[in-house]
């Protein structure tokens, strides 16, 4: 959920999902939500418009909807909204940006619930009854997403908590976006049941990859990180079952203090037990959510694990498994690891230090997490 903002709703009886249209640049359609930059009535308004958002710059008192259409009055003027962004307006007046065509990091958010509570979770789970609600929103969202979208995530919380709705969602995505690469972020625990996997297989979506976190090569350490017993056994079994039914897999290893000493052994474990995985990503910590709460236990300076990381990356790479390093700026790693670094931090939370403009490798560096600023971790060292 990004850029949540709250305004005053009029005539919004059920959640509205629509594409932002800026008057008078184009003719709105019934999937459009017209964005007005101030309170005024345009001469004509398409009566089929899904809704209207009004930025109340003049701060006038408002009494009712614009032209009889469902309307949201926003006084938060900082909110960035651009043409063709897809948003949801909830009945309580919250405005949620669901999709930004100018971003490479869009996801379908499916639930806040999770069956783990990982120490480093950047988006800690909430217990709530949101699965049906979010499914309905996504059902409206998917048809509006441009067909030429290259990549789209499915995230939460834990997407497998949707049960059969997950394959239903994947079917919809396959139908409307057949050429879009889909990445589902999941702990795969539910896939320790082959029935759950078969449902996914039956969708026959050829462009789905499952991104699955693995913390260690044995249960006590992995389960300590997920704060959930049996999670290691279920996740590894889930990974195997997914492969049995022809699904693609990426393993994600979040680099945190309890796990870094065993990185090389984890790499060996991955190669020996799941050599079929398509990709392994070693990921720097995002200091937000649970990670911020547990920062003292899990934070670790990349320079202190560089040797272990290098050994792990090298082992997988030599063995033929593609490897990447995510979420770490180039300056914290030695240059032999740079070829593996990817610009992975989502654009809406990526920042650079002022000194970065002097850096020789600025253009290919993935930068820092915005949240790193607040926790005092923005230690840039420009490369000369």
């Amino acid at each position: 959920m990004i850029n949540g903002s709250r305004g005053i709703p009029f005539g919004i009886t059920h959640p509205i999902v629509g594409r932002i249209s800026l008057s008078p640049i184009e003719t709105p359609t019934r999937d459009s939500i017209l964005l007005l930059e101030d309170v005024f009535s345009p001469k004509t308004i398409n009566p089929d418009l899904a809704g209207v958002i009004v930025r109340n710059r003049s701060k006038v008192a408002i009494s009712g909807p614009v032209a009889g259409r469902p309307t949201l009055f926003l006084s938060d003027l900082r909110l960035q909204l651009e043409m063709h962004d897809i948003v949801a307006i909830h009945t309580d007046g919250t405005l949620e940006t669901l999709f930004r065509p100018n971003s490479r990091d869009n996801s379908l958010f499916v639930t806040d619930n999770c069956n783990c509570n990982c120490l480093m979770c950047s988006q800690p789970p909430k217990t709530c009854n949101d699965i049906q609600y979010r499914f309905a929103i996504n059902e409206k969202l998917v048809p509006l997403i441009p067909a030429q979208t290259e990549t789209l995530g499915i995230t939460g919380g834990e997407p497998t908590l949707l049960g059969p709705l997950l394959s239903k969602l994947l079917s919809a995505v396959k139908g409307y976006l057949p050429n879009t690469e889909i990445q589902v972020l999941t702990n795969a625990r539910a896939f320790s049941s082959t029935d759950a996997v078969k449902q996914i297989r039956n969708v026959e979506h050829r462009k789905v990859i499952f991104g699955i976190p693995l913390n260690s090569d044995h249960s006590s350490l992995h389960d300590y990180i997920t704060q959930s017993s049996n999670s290691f056994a279920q996740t590894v079994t889930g990974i195997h079952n997914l492969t049995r039914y022809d699904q693609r897999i990426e393993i994600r290893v979040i680099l945190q203090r309890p796990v870094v000493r065993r990185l090389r052994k984890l790499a060996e474990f991955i190669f020996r037990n799941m050599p079929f995985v398509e990709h392994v990503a070693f990921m720097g910590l995002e200091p937000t959510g649970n990670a911020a709460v547990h920062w003292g236990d899990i934070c670790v300076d990349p320079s202190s694990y560089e040797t272990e990381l290098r050994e792990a990356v090298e082992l997988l790479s030599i063995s033929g498994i593609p490897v990447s390093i995510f979420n770490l700026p180039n300056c914290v790693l030695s240059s032999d690891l740079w070829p593996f670094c990817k610009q992975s931090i989502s654009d809406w939370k990526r920042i650079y230090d002022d000194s970065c403009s002097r850096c020789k490798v600025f253009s290919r560096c993935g930068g820092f997490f915005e949240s790193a600023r607040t926790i005092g971790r923005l230690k840039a060292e420009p490369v000369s």
Partner: protein
Amino acid sequence: MRIELRQDNLEVRVQLQTYSLDVLHKCFYWYGEDFSVDIETENGSIGLVLLRPKAGTIDESLLGSLSERIRSDLIDFKVRDIVTQETRNVRDLLIAKAFACTDEFDTPVPVQSTDIDHDHC
């Protein structure tokens, strides 16, 4: 365990309760290139291994290192025997699963009700 040199024979005596005949056979199989090996029981509870060198005789000076080697080998083969006994069932199960053709041999991974509970505050 007693290891004694009697004329040309090295005599190794063990408690069969500690080192079974299986263990003795597997251990002293490897001595068969350099020695003639006989394995017998004495009084029902003692295992007796007779080693006669195929070439030459056993030097007193070599007795020490040979005894060491025998003791160490016996322990190793005893350890192997324990592993074989303790893991027989798991191994059979593993191989049966490996060559089974259907899902019905899958072992469900334990799922407690708390695993997918929403009880974290």
